[in-house]
């Protein structure tokens, strides 16, 4: 398992271990977006985790970028990282932050700009497929609607079925539903009866985990029919919202935190 995967697997012992390791942060600016690099002291390689951009200014791909980009590239070249470390900062750099959407105070992580970069989009899918391809996954469940963008390519690459988890009244056949809470009120998620079988091994995929409400509803729906949810996989995590805790004992894998 690559280092990035380990850094984000929430086994309690590993998490507390990671917290006691002193970390050096270096900040690079790549295309105007701030990217942090974590250097673990005892490793010969550099683990790169991309932090969410606090401010996006795509127009600031100006003169200064060349020097900054060079220092970024030199750093990567001098490390003994495996290919995964090069891919993640690049993926992170394609994500756009939109201020005050859908309401004031919220910084929306927009993955549509990732989808406009074929190489970055392919790398994101590859990172998930590499992680899961030998884990006998039969089912990829994707959460409406952005989970429908990432889930099917992963399912196709792994020989798994794709199961859409949808808002109420969208699925035409017989469904089972699970209620989950929102900031104000509740919503419901539905899955077709017969889409999955007891004993199947599943991933749940979405673009982003915030509070973990929708992901935990999806887990419950699948578990109710006897499916083993192996892991939840998202491109982005908003750790301050503690969605990971809401998943209970289910592990979470993310590319960007």
């Amino acid at each position: 398992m690559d280092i990035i995967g380990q850094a984000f697997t929430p086994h309690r012992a590993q998490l507390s271990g990671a917290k006691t390791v002193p970390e050096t942060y270096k900040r690079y600016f790549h295309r105007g977006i701030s990217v942090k690099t974590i250097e673990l002291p005892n490793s010969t390689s550099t683990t790169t985790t991309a932090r969410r951009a606090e401010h996006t200014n795509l127009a600031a791909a100006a003169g200064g970028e060349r020097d900054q980009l060079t220092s970024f590239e030199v750093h990567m070249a001098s490390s003994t990282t495996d290919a995964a470390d090069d891919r993640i900062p690049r993926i992170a750099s394609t994500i756009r932050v939109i201020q005050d959407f859908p309401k004031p105070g919220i910084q929306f992580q927009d993955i549509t700009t990732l989808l406009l970069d074929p190489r970055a989009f392919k790398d994101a899918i590859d990172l998930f497929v590499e992680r899961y391809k030998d884990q006998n996954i039969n089912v990829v469940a994707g959460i409406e609607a952005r989970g429908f963008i990432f889930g099917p390519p992963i399912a196709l690459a792994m020989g798994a079925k794709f199961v859409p988890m949808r808002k109420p009244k969208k699925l035409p056949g017989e469904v089972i539903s699970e209620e989950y809470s929102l900031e104000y009120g509740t919503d419901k998620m539905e899955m077709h009866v017969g889409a999955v079988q007891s004993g199947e091994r599943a991933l749940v995929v979405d673009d982003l985990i915030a509070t973990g409400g929708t992901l935990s509803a999806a887990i419950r729906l699948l578990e109710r029919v006897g499916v083993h949810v192996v892991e939840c996989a998202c491109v982005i995590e908003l750790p301050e919202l503690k969605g990971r805790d809401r998943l209970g004992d289910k592990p979470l894998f993310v590319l960007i935190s």
Partner: protein
Amino acid sequence: MFAAENGLKGDPRLQAISDAIRVIPHFPKPGIMFQDITTLLLNHKVFKDTVDIFVDRYKDMDISVVAGIEARGFMFGPSIALAIGAKFVPLRKPGKLPGDVISEAYELEYGKDCLEMHIDAVQRGERAVVIDDLVATGGTLSAAIKLLESMEAEVVECACVIGLPEAKGRQSRLNGKPLYILVEPREFEGYC
């Protein structure tokens, strides 16, 4: 045009695709025989064949944009985009896309709806295909074509897994753009 009349006559994959689609009668309302593609997505081989047919068609046509219509177009479009090295552009219901958008209204049977696209998703001169699971009247696809053309992209073709009879010969509803369809709708064969 249907795939069977356009190079794939007798291709067994088409029959398997048709067989994998489930018909739900009277959804969302009485009289409508809903063509449910979720059963196709459960069959890995058939799902892969569906994507491969579109990929084989578009991979040498210099396509740089695959636009998918929310939400079932999202289930097919990205895989096609990835395989041909194109960008994927989601076309969404109002209020979903967070950045600056352009909108196009279109007619429903009763009332209107609206489709949106991020303004910076496509560049002038890019060649695009539009993907959805099914075409009926062509209203949504027409709106999609207008969105792409308003940003001066060239819509090369629209592609759907299923084409209802109303879509046949209705080139004018699709603004003169060709329409490529894999299968006709299935008949409802009774409850299993």
